[in-house]
């Protein structure tokens, strides 16, 4: 699938499948791997980087799990395409900014992808909808096994998989879940919970991963350490902490319903009204409006829109997504108009599906 086709569809990992899908948007596991015998990407000479790219590409082409994948050289992509891939959670901002001898491979309906020559030679990523981080690990692990048969990884018996940044050395695993926590934010308990999460040795990040900010009450919870713990243990302790956090969120929702039902209902329906009738809207605003409606959906106040509909609004509203869909560059003001049209259209379709509106 090329970028133009992707732009017309929602990422399959936003399908609303998996446990707790109304609160857990997605689960992701990535593995950092380097090729033995090459300097790490930032230290490699241009010809070494190109060779690492060739070796990686061959190995990926030989992997069964990536049989139908698309290989894209970053240097073949324009700025808008790269930004689109960042919004799609397929590449990092850092990868979008450098292009020589860098590539991305996208397979399995965007649920499995590889960045080549980012900070590490290979960054394998598996994303699934909902609470499916173990499944994501299983799939990325299988791809890793397939690559392992064809290349020699930089590995130490003592310290595991060696990475450019020592924070990734060991298993090279970063497992994360994108979790919606509106009630903890509204009841002012979120700081306490985030503090607790960091004391458990996990990290919290924003919507686009490391260094990004939190929007629409969506928090990305992930492991912080990668050495001295097995992959399964990393995944299981993330599962445990996220379940605990969801439990707190559930209790906070009960409190909201008990003590502030009419305020919440008002907030939910006002947000719904804006999404339905807006003529100009910024992405940040869509994030916060969809957050309110998502809460309304979970609290059974709203039934005319699905989780998938909300997910699709959030993703389609992103700047590069809008520009790719409409096939042209647009300034912020024009984007706000087109975004409002897009959001209204998604909502109208959802209402038609549920026979409401």
């Amino acid at each position, binding site marked *: 699938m090329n970028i133009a086709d992707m732009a017309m569809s929602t990422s399959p990992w936003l399908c609303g499948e998996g446990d707790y899908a109304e609160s857990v948007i997605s689960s992701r596991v990535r593995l950092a791997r380097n090729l033995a015998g090459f300097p790490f990407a930032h230290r490699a000479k241009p010809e070494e980087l190109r060779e690492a790219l060739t070796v990686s590409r061959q190995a990926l082409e030989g992997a069964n799990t990536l049989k139908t994948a698309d290989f894209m050289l970053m240097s073949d992509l324009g700025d808008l395409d790269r930004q689109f891939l960042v919004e799609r959670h397929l590449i990092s901002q850092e990868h979008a900014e450098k292009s020589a001898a860098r590539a991305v491979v996208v397979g399995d309906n965007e649920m499995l992808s590889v960045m080549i020559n980012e900070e590490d030679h290979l960054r394998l990523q598996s994303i699934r909808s909902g609470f499916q981080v173990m499944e994501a690990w299983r799939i990325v692990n299988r791809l890793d096994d397939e690559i392992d048969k064809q290349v020699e990884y930089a590995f130490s018996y003592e310290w595991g998989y060696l990475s450019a940044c*020592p924070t990734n050395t060991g298993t090279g695993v970063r497992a994360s879940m994108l979790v919606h926590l509106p009630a903890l934010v509204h009841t002012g308990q979120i700081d306490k919970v985030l503090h607790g999460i960091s004391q458990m040795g996990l990290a919290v990040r924003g919507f686009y991963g490391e260094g990004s900010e939190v929007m629409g009450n969506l928090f990305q919870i992930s492991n912080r350490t990668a050495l001295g713990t097995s992959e399964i243990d990393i995944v299981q302790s993330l599962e445990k902490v996220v379940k605990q956090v969801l439990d707190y969120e559930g209790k906070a929702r009960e409190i909201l319903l008990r003590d502030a039902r009419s305020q919440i209902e008002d907030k939910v329906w006002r947000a719904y009204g804006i999404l339905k009738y807006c003529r100009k809207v910024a992405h940040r605003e869509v994030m916060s409006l969809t957050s309110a409606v998502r809460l309304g959906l979970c609290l059974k106040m709203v039934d005319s829109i699905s989780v998938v509909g909300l997910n699709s609004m959030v993703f389609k509203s992103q700047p590069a997504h809008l520009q790719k869909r409409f096939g042209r560059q647009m300034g912020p003001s024009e984007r706000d108009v087109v975004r409002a049209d897009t959001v209204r259209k998604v909502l109208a379709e959802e209402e038609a599906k549920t026979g409401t509106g």
Partner: protein
Amino acid sequence: MLCDNCKKEPARIHYKEIKDNQVSEFHLCEKCAIEKGIQVPHKKQTFSISNILTGMTEETGSDLSTCSACGLTYKEFRDAGRLGCANCYETFKEQIKPLLRRIHGSNVHIGKSPRSSQGIFEKRREIEDLKMELSRSIESEDFERAAELRDRIKELEKQQEGDE
């Protein structure tokens, strides 16, 4: 997202301006933002793990030691928080060991290993199991068994040295 002004560089500075009750949003690249006289908070805000990392590394007299494979100096590693190649981990072993412990709370890899080294990991696990059994048999004063185990461990450890 591209800069609203030059439409070439990626937009890095995002800000809102309220003028005559009208909110406008701007997305500019660093260069255009500076040209327009907008204060850029920091050249590049990269307060990430790597910065904290640099603070965690040892400040020893080894700043000049250099990796023989890629030429990275210890000072360069301390400044950027990135190692240059697999061999750097050997070169700066003494400094990296405590660093890894501070980051991860451990400096021994447990978990997956590449196909090429699986035999060695199985051996390592077997040795650990045997050592556990050894201490149990000493506790229960089964010295005959303990002697057997000790010999087996010695043998495996010798093989292991050869492998690694």
